[in-house]
């Protein structure tokens, strides 16, 4: 080839210069565990379903959601949202209203009649589930998907367990509960109501089941020793809630005191207001920050006119009058009596001092041990008796619908592995997507869409639902506040900020790849990734 004057080398593109060999560290794409997912007791892939909800594809979002939890419309009403407490956006402005979006998805599914995934191919194995509460229903759903025949036995005339007898209708409308339960039953679950299992081991053998799951709720009210006069009226919170559910509400009078500091205490006080009590006073021995009730529950109760006497205990109950004693917290935070007495007019004292689970159905099963009010289970949720598993309120730990649903799903998967003769292995932990991984600059500032609260006055007189749902546009807005922590949201930033054009955009849904022939390892893509879905790792060679 004839070259121009003074040109001796073949000219060409700099593409022949593989600058990748400058690199000492390489960027890689990662999928970190978002804090919402890490915090969800039900094991939901929250970031995953929000990602679909952001696109407005609510059905796809709902389908990801129900992989873990078949009760989103219920959960969207009753969950105390540990996901939102964990949400990284809370450090930016306010946590994403995950629970509200979940409820929107759950309601959309009921409205549009979306069906749960179908039952799996029949395995010929049969599993007995004792208790038709959230744990038992969740387990039944997952077991059906895995192809096992499921019989759910419950002593009550209606399914739902503590969701029905322990959660007032103003927090969980019964038609929502019934619809989501029915959708699980459509997968072919044998539901036997009004049947109490007295000996689970016998039921397992007699019924020809291959495994059993004990998923009974904490239905027994604890008692408090309170000296009481003959005319004092003392009832348990659970019996009050149950009486309302069964349509024959107990008479509570005009002035009601509730003793206890948990959610049930506040539910009882709010229910008493709805039954016509002018004064509903919660009496608790400790302070607000030490009360086991969730903040949302306390705030809503106060908004409804429920009064609270902190640092007080009930010394004596007489007809129409309680004697309270002021308490003080010692150095260890334990309440100590002060001797200062106080009086409180009360027609009725409602005790909400804790609940226990009736585990007598396990008494005859060899190898089962009980401690701390719950059955001892191994990491695979199996009790000491081979083939008998336990979950929900039956095991010690947090008692909530979300936890019960999570236990049910986990128990189902582990029963499945056990039936297959395999040993369950915990999955490898993912690195958490902590806030310091987020490049907050890229996120627009936006407030939290607050769920419309029904007018407090109206709430007191009825059992209508208290917290309203998001509408279509606000649900989309709320979903789009998600930071997508630790998981690529395809914002093209890595592709944009590479000074060496070494990031390859693969197209919608396909994300990106790094061209290591030219990547110099500057790390700009990692530093400018909004959501922490990239990492720098040292080169090995």
């Amino acid at each position, binding site marked *: 080839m004839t070259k121009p004057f003074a040109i001796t080398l073949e000219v060409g593109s700099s593409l022949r210069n593989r600058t990748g060999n400058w690199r000492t560290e390489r960027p890689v794409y990662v999928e970190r565990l978002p804090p919402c997912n890490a915090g969800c007791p039900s094991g939901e892939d929250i970031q995953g379903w929000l990602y679909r909800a952001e696109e407005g594809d609510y059905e796809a979002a709902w389908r990801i959601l129900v992989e873990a939890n078949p009760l989103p419309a219920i959960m969207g009403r009753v969950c105390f949202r540990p996901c939102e407490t964990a949400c990284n956006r809370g450090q930016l402005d306010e946590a994403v209203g995950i629970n509200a979006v979940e409820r929107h998805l759950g309601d959309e599914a009921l409205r549009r009649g979306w069906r749960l995934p179908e039952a799996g191919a029949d395995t010929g194995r049969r599993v007995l589930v004792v208790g038709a509460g959230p744990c038992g229903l969740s387990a039944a759903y997952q077991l059906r998907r895995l192809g096992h025949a499921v019989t759910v036995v419950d002593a009550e005339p209606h399914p739902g367990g503590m969701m029905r007898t322990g959660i007032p209708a103003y927090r969980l409308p019964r038609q929502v509960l019934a619809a989501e339960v029915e959708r699980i039953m459509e997968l072919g679950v044998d539901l036997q109501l009004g049947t109490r299992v007295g000996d689970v081991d016998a039921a397992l053998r007699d019924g020809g089941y291959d495994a059993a799951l004990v998923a009974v709720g904490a239905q027994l009210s604890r008692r408090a020793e309170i000296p009481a006069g003959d005319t004092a009226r003392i009832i348990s919170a659970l019996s009050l809630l149950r009486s309302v559910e069964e349509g024959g509400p107990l008479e509570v009078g005009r002035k009601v005191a509730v003793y206890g500091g948990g959610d049930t205490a506040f539910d009882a006080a709010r229910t008493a207001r709805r039954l016509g009590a002018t004064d509903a006073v919660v009496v608790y021995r400790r302070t607000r920050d030490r009360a086991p009730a969730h903040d949302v529950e306390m705030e809503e109760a106060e908004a409804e006119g429920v009064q609270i006497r902190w640092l007080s205990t009930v010394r004596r109950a007489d007809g129409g009058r309680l004697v309270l004693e002021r308490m003080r917290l010692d150095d260890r935070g334990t309440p100590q009596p002060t001797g200062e007495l106080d009086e409180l007019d009360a027609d009725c004292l409602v005790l909400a001092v804790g609940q226990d689970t009736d585990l007598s159905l396990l008494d005859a099963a060899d190898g089962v041990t009980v401690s701390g009010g719950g059955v001892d289970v191994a990491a695979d949720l199996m009790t000491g008796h081979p083939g008998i598993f336990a979950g929900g309120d039956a095991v010690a730990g947090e008692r909530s619908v979300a936890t019960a649903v999570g236990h049910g799903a986990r128990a189902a998967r582990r029963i499945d592995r056990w039936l297959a003769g395999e040993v369950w292995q915990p999955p490898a932990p993912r690195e958490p997507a902590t806030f310091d991984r987020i490049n907050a600059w890229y996120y627009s500032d936006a407030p939290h869409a607050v769920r419309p609260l029904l007018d407090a006055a109206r709430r007191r007189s009825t059992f209508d639902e208290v917290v309203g749902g998001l509408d279509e546009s606000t649900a989309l807005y709320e979903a789009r506040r998600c930071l997508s922590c630790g998981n690529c949201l395809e914002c093209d930033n890595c592709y*944009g900020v590479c000074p060496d054009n070494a990031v390859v955009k693969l197209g919608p849904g396909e994300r990106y790849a790094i061209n290591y022939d030219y990547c110099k390892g500057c790390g700009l893509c990692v530093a400018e990734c909004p959501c922490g879905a990239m990492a720098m790792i040292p080169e090995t060679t």
Partner: protein
Amino acid sequence: MPSTPVRFYQVGSFAAGNRLLDPSLRTVQSEQGRTNSLTSGHRACQGCGEALGARYVLDAAMRASAGQLVVVNATGCLEVFSTPYPESSWQVPWLHSLFANAPAAASGVAAALHAQGRDSVRVLAQGGDGATFDIGLGCLSGMFERNDDVLYVCYDNEAYMNTGVQRSAATPPAARTATTEAVGPEPGNSFGRGKDMPRVAMAHGIPYVATATVADLHDIEEKVTAAMAVRGARYLHVLVPCPLGWGAPPDQTVRLARQAKESGLFPVFTARDGEVTEVSPIRHRIPVDGYLRAQRRYRHLFEPEERTEDIARIQAMADANIARYGLLDPPQRGPQ
């Protein structure tokens, strides 16, 4: 040309693209088919702000001109790292002559195209702060004064980086360079009166002057597009942090540019016919302290003891910019 507001609270229009944004609202840089005017294999340092800025500007100019673009380059880092004989990283028609004469050469290219009746082919000249502030200022001023149909882009990294970080007229006060060492009673570059290049350009009354940084891709592309819609002499000044000369890790390039803007040290605005018409307001105001600490060229302001007076003088410069351009006055850019 303000961007169309979209109620989108995730990354909105701050990130390069977004799967949920209408494609017309995404940046050129988010397109799979972008020109990549400056292609891979160039020899810029890791994390080079100038390489990034040049691709941002030229890819946007290529789209605005429908691919009808000639680029004239002054001597400097950009020229050296992109064209070590016999390689070229340019995927656009590209011409280099001398350090001082890029504006004059570009004027000539524009005149020649005009003489041929090929006015649809647009001319863009580019250089670093050395070529712009110092060596080529005479030619540039002439190009402005004649209102030649050229968009001149200055990639400002605040010193002569290619030759080993020597001071230029763009070097900020107190910054350490090879010729303003951090020694003596007044370490680093002197607190002079400075040379405000965008203001010099505005003083010529040319139709379009704008500043931008590599930290706001949407802004820089909007400005290139707006400039390309105008005929006559235009000036775009882009702040491009230099990991080597500023003494910062290569992954901090974009962050430093962002901090320069958010502190007020580098005002981002548009001027038409000599008057400021638009400013990019500060979104989250920060003191200059963090910006200075992040760079080794300012280390002597903090070690062995903190030179609070110098830091205060730099803060006063930022405050003066904020007051002069009203960087806090306009409503903050809303959710997009």
